């Protein structure tokens, strides 16, 4: 059994992580992707599968293959928040608006984000993702939404974070 198994697994994972990121960037640039979250998860999933296949082909044992897979998982949990920050962060969007329309009065900046429009859009997204459902003119949480709300409500209580948002 080769003694450099961990080094090989790490190298394969590192190369695949680069390929995953390049694939993501190229796919999102050259194709109109509607379900971006699902596409990202699929790309990372394909990378993980490739890790397993390649490392198995290189004769690595299960433990080292798992170690390599953990690295791809680590890349996933680090990259996804960065991507979502880039895609949805209000702070970043505000920064871009200040640059575009500089100087910008506080009133004009707030007017770019009317509450009913912003919140309505988010409610639609939550409904499309299965966390809430529209009943008449109101929204109620699905089981999935209630679970998430309760978990994070408990985290906020445990850490004494206050309302947040």
């Amino acid at each position, binding site marked *: 059994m080769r003694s450099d198994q961990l080094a090989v697994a790490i190298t394969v994972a590192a190369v695949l992580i680069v390929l995953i990121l390049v694939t993501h960037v190229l796919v999102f640039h050259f194709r109109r992707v509607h379900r971006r979250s699902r596409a990202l998860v699929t790309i990372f999933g394909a990378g993980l599968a490739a890790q397993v296949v390649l490392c198995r082909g290189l004769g690595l044992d299960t433990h080292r293959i798992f170690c390599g897979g953990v690295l791809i998982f680590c890349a996933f949990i680090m990259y996804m928040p960065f991507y979502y920050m880039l895609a949805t962060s209000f702070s970043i969007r505000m920064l871009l608006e200040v640059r575009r329309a500089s100087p910008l009065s506080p009133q004009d900046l707030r007017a770019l984000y009317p509450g009913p429009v912003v919140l309505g859009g*988010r409610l639609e997204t939550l409904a499309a993702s299965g966390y809430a459902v529209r009943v008449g003119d109101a929204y109620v949480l699905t089981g999935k939404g209630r679970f998430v709300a309760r978990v994070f409500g408990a985290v906020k209580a445990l850490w004494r974070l206050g309302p947040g*948002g």
Partner: protein
Amino acid sequence: MKGLLLAVAGAAVLTLVATLVFRLFATERRAALLVRLFLLSLPVFVLVYVLTPADLGVIQPWAVEPDPRLELAYGLVVYSALFFGGLLQLYNLAERGFSLRILIDIGEAPNGRLAERDLVQAYGGRRGFDAALDKRIDGLLSTGLIHVVDGRFELTPRGARGVRLYQPLRAFLRLGTA
């Protein structure tokens, strides 16, 4: 295996320490506090790795790594990922998560139903949507990304650098302005 186990155990201990600190000390800059705790924990992680046996008393011989330095580096990478991608993100979501706050507001509404027209005032535990916008604006001001000149917002040089980084990325990924 040792590096991975210590990374997971270290992340669990760091989470417990962070919880204790949050409950015992009131602070506004919790994210910075978390990062400081993480940085302080790094030499502890290395020390624990160096001072403990290669098999930790429980690891099977086939899983003991022949290159301890590589495994230490691996463990540090995993530990860092569990912090930056795990604990810190959990905090960010719980503290600032916009959609998450909406879910909690709906759950806390009478009968678990919240009309869309009522959400603007009900948002953020009844602090209102405008308070959330003000929080973001205050954050941009306090982190030095924008400043006020004659009553209007302008980018600082730091903010301009941020825009030069974010804007091309958003454009290339077709993230738009929505």
